[in-house]
């Protein structure tokens, strides 16, 4: 026991780099029930069976370190997650050092996704901060021999109110470290918050306006090589042979080796050109002569695949969600509406292309990477290389965008494999072409919609999704006999009071690597769902917003969002001729947001997007300015997905290659955006990063319909060529 304690202590010191005697508090998670409990880890020990996460430490020197297990990819967790601890601890963020965790085995949840970083940590991290503060106050009160109630903490000091004397947290760290963790630490009342709920500046922003922020691509290791990898242009093809004679003649090229990319169950072999500078690696790559066996995948093209999805839509599908009796009520409905909607494959295209620097040395691996999760990097690499997880140290860098792409660690596996194979540190950097062409992509989804109307009311509703599946491309154990709930996301959870519903799923197999995209399947299925609600409103002759509210007689968050949108957008004020507005909302695992979009007709077949109003429902807000920033960004990203380029395939190859043919919305195309936050202090804290995205496309297309009478049912569409 003594020995293992010492090992824990040593490991812990390595994690935090702590030198002096310190107060260290962690959260222990009992594997059995996952309930977090705050522990004093100052001695490096704790109860058996718990995995400890040393989130906060205060050293004698006064240095306060907060470990942040969440990646910073633009969503603001570099500020918002440590702020949860700092607020209760009674320190400002400029008084603490924030460190990313690095894949340590005893640290839970080093993974970032699902808009969950703040909401999942809101109470545990505050409790941790409050516990530390109470221990520091108790230590001070003991030292002064005064009642605890006469003391308070602020700005990393404990004060004795009557006398005005104070002690710094550094001075109190050692005596506090010997105390018991309070059983029920008192959390601040929201009205006393100094940071939470307020627009607090982000710590990473000064670094990001001065070129000082370090992203994965900026990693440097002494003796490092640079690499670029040529992969089969037809995804799924296999390597037959390669000739590296000319590549090796390029000055600076050192080696050419085979390297494996592992994307979950899929493995792809590429040829890596390793050079002493990146430009040489690229020139060497161009000089490679490679023979691939396309394995028949060169027959794959978008036109046929899309038609296959349309053909599959004739199948009934597997029921994912059911209420009442759809079939008979649709059959007997006075008025039947049916429509077919299509959304495309798209790329994530974060601005920082995929890259990873790996250093294999004596069976251990050190990695520098932009990744959405240190534990995802660690686990993917450990599995691919067949080495223990504890042999991997992941240096998390700022992510130059994630959007779901950096959940998959295929590029880290490539770099790790490569470093092991050449036995040198190496920086692998994908080109933008690699990033655009090689996937993983957001899956296309097609939707067959049916609505039955009787007496001006929707009596039957069906959303059938026909699509390939992310789970199927990832898991070898995918069960085709069950409805894929992830591909039906949100279709059964809108609060509209429709008595008879039957949502079904039709699976379509595909060989392409697919993955989660910002707001996942809601980014595609909200468009048909909320556009079709609009079609039903039109069919009943009702205003689309009033039509929705008419199906929301009971109180709901959606009802509040729509009511707020009505108010802020001036919905009831008629627009001038040639303009139109549309509305949509979407509630799903990450949260809830609604949009009103205003467009004006500039030609018979062209519209301009004038303004977007968004209302995001949060319950509780941690950093309102950052929330607005996230919603603005989600709107721009949704606008790109709706109006720019699909990813398409011809002869098995991705047709789009770079930003000239996989275009992104630019400065001159962005409408005015107005974001409103509903934060009524409800018990449920909703997500921020994703909810601003799904309902933008349907609100936009509903606005286009209002302005032009043209119904958009296929994305992307061209704002300048509406048909």
């Amino acid at each position: 026991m003594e020995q293992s304690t010492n090992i824990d202590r040593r490991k812990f010191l390595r994690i935090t780099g702590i030198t002096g005697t310190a107060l260290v508090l962690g959260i222990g998670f009992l594997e059995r029930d996952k309930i977090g409990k705050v522990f004093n880890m100052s001695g490096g020990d704790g109860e058996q069976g718990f995995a400890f996460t040393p989130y906060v430490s205060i050293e004698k020197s006064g240095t306060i370190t907060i470990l942040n297990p969440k990646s910073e990819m633009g969503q603001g967790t570099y500020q918002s997650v440590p702020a949860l601890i700092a607020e209760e601890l009674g320190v400002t963020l400029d008084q603490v050092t924030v460190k990313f965790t690095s894949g340590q085995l005893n640290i839970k949840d080093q993974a970032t996704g699902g808009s969950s970083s703040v909401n999942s940590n809101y109470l545990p991290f505050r409790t941790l901060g409050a516990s530390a503060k109470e221990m520091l106050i108790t230590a001070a009160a003991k030292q002064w021999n005064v009642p605890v109630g006469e003391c308070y903490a602020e700005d990393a000091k404990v004060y004795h109110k009557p006398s005005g004397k104070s002690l710094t947290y550094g001075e109190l760290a050692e005596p506090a470290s010997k105390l018991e963790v309070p059983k029920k630490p008192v959390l601040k009342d929201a009205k006393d918050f100094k940071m939470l709920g307020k627009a607090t500046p982000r710590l990473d922003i000064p670094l990001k306006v001065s070129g000082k922020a370090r992203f994965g691509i900026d990693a440097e290791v002494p003796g490092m090589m640079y690499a670029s990898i040529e992969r089969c242009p037809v995804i799924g093809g296999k390597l037959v042979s390669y000739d590296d004679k000319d590549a090796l003649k390029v000055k600076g090229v050192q080696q050419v080796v085979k390297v494996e990319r592992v994307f979950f169950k899929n493995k792809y072999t590429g040829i890596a050109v390793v050079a002493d500078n990146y430009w040489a690696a690229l020139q060497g790559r161009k000089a490679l002569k490679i023979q691939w066996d396309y394995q028949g995948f060169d027959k794959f093209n978008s036109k046929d695949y899309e038609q296959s999805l349309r053909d599959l839509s004739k199948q009934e599908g597997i029921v994912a969600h059911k209420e009442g009796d759809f079939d008979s009520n649709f059959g007997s409905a006075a008025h039947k509406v049916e429509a077919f909607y299509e959304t495309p494959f798209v790329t994530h295209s974060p601005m920082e292309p995929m890259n990873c620097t790996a250093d294999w040395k004596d069976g251990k691996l050190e990695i520098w990477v932009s990744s959405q999760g240190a534990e995802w990097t660690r686990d993917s690499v450990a599995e691919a290389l067949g080495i223990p997880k504890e042999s991997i140290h992941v240096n998390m860098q700022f992510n130059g965008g994630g959007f779901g792409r950096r959940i998959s660690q295929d590029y880290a596996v490539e770099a790790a494999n490569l470093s092991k194979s050449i036995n040198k540190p190496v920086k692998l950097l994908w080109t933008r072409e690699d990033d655009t062409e090689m996937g993983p992509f957001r899956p296309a989804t097609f939707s067959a919609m049916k609505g039955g109307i009787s007496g001006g009311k929707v009596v039957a509703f069906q959303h059938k999704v026909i699509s390939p599946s992310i789970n199927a491309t990832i898991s070898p154990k995918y069960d085709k006999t069950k409805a894929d709930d992830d591909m039906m996301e949100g279709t059964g959870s809108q609060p509209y009071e429709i008595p008879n519903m039957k949502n079904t799923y039709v699976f379509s197999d595909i060989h392409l690597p697919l993955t989660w995209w910002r707001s996942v399947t809601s980014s595609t299925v909200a468009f048909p769902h909320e556009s079709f609600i609009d079609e039903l409103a039109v069919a009943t002759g009702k205003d689309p917003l009033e039509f929705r509210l008419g199906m929301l007689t009971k109180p709901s968050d959606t009802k509040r969002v729509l009511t707020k949108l009505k108010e802020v957008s001036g919905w009831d004020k008629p627009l001038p001729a040639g303009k139109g507005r549309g509305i949509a909302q979407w509630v799903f695992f990450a949260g809830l947001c609604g949009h009103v979009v205003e467009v004006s007709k500039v030609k018979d077949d062209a519209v301009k997007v004038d303004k977007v109003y968004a209302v995001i429902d949060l319950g509780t807000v941690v950093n309102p300015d950052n929330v607005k920033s996230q919603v603005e960004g989600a709107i721009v990203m949704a606008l790109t997905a709706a109006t720019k380029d699909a990813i398409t395939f011809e002869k098995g190859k991705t047709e789009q290659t770079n930003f000239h043919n996989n275009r992104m919305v630019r400065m001159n195309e962005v409408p005015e955006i107005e974001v409103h936050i509903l934060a009524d202090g409800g018990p449920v804290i909703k997500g921020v990063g994703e909810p601003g995205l799904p309902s933008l496309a349907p609100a936009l297309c509903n606005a286009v319909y209002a302005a032009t009478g043209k119904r958009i049912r296929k994305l992307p569409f061209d704002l300048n060529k509406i048909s």
Partner: protein
Amino acid sequence: MASFTLNINNQSHTVDVDPEMPLLWVIRDFIGLKGTKFGCGIAQCGACTVHFDGQPIRSCSYPVQGAVGKKITTIEGISENTDHPIQKAWIELQVPQCGYCQSGQIMSAAALLNHNHQPTDADIDEAMSGNICRCGTYPRIRRAIHKAADLMNDKQTA
């Protein structure tokens, strides 16, 4: 290989590289200034924007041999203490999200404000449309450019 002497941020650097190597890789990997970013390699995204004599160029598509004799400025060279009016405005309006494109955005904005002290929205569209931001910070960039212009003009009148 050939030897080139470059003036970057008022410092002289000599490198021995392939004359066709884009300036971007020279700046990043030979000189070690990592603030300038690689985004597309074909002058489509602007992440690699630096100045030649105050004018914005895309360093990913500019062979190093063409950079000799130019006064090159990178993000690291626009201020000593992150106090250029553009940087101040960017911080005040909390512009960056992931931040990867922002060096390029700031260099394009700085070039605009060098010759236009009161840019209109149309001027901003024109000057900034070569820079992609995938996080969608465009509305804040626009506001921050107006703010920076105000800060610069205030300074001049003060």
